[in-house]
């Protein structure tokens, strides 16, 4: 059985890249990068993905997926989304928002990441990536190596 505390631990435990981000050739009008992650103690394994529409820049999703060792399948833990359209909570507004998994949904076999919170943490695709890599606690050296800040942006902190 999953608990919300365990889900939180999975999202925030320090992580390193174990499989470099690779761009996948898509048939469709979107880009996708996938990469492998592991907790630095090697106990947990994850996949990460970044997708963005080539038609609408604001339609993107940047996700963290848990890959449990002892059970089949994967569980999406969180997804940082752009302003792609409405949600059940805000049906008539396009908000920057984050999907989170919650224990109740996982334990009852529902699609995990159904908890949605609007966010002011990012306002562009690039800033969403920077938020995501800090949010999932990616090692600073891997952040710099694989997801460097865009050249016009300075990280003052």
């Amino acid at each position, binding site marked *: 059985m999953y608990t919300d505390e365990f889900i939180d631990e999975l999202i925030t435990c320090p992580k390193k890249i174990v499989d470099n981000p690779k761009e996948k050739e898509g*048939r469709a009008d*979107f880009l996708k990068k996938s990469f492998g992650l592991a907790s630095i103690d090697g106990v947990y394994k994850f996949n990460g993905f970044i997708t963005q529409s080539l038609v609408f820049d604001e339609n993107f*999703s940047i996700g963290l997926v848990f890959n449990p060792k002892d059970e089949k399948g994967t569980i999406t833990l969180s997804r940082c989304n752009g302003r792609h359209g409405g949600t059940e909570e805000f*049906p008539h507004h396009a908000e920057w928002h984050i*999907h989170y998994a919650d224990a109740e949904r996982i334990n009852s076999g529902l699609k995990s990441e*159904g908890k949605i919170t609007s966010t002011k943490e990012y306002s562009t695709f690039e800033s969403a990536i920077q938020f995501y890599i800090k949010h999932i606690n990616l090692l600073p050296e891997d952040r710099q190596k694989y997801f460097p800040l865009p050249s016009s942006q300075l990280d003052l902190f």
Partner: protein
Amino acid sequence: MDEILKNIESDFNNQALIKQKRPDIYQLYLPIFHEDGDMIDLFIIPKGNSEYTLCDFGLTLQRLSYSYDIDTENKEAIFQKILSENSLYEKKGNICLDTTVENTFSNIMHITHALAKIGSMRYFKREVIESLFIEMLDEFINQELREFHPQSKVLPIPDRDDLEADYQFSPNGHPVYLFGVKDVSKARLTTISCLEFQKANLNFRGWVVNDDFEKLPRKDRSRLTNTCDKQFTSLEEFKMNAKIFLEREKK
């Protein structure tokens, strides 16, 4: 354009909202949601001559790609089947349905239903299909091999209820015990069962249908191969050849 937009709002009992996303591209905010709470992505663009196109600008496939890529011929064939059965067409991932003002409501319902179907392709993931192996084997045996009188959950040594064969066929006096093997632990149990049946001097044939023979560890493959009489490396292989081999057992 105004006419069709007003029609949509009215058809959806004013629960729908329409916003211009880009010049000549209007996003429909409809009370139709994905399982994760996001709204279905649907747009309408004018085509000329009072015709319009409902489309998703590739966002359904983008969403599907979070957990499932259409990257093999089989997956592509299923995707194309869904499109053709629903009279949709695709341009570089953009899934489209042409409409007129009069048919807009029914076409919106039609395309959103079809987009949900495409989104459901994630259930075809290997680990989900794998879990259906036993059900698929059972369905095939009970539908296609009835002439060989299959019995399920058989105990070849009556006082050993820990050594169960999944099926028994009796084509020619001696029984054929069949085991469905979908993982390592079942491979080991099958090996032990066949060895025990041999030790008890039973006159039988031991058959194995593997979910995926190549996925078993090398030593398990060797043990299983050395112990049983006949192996099918996959369910497809069994479906193609089961009757031929059961007929041969009759002779």
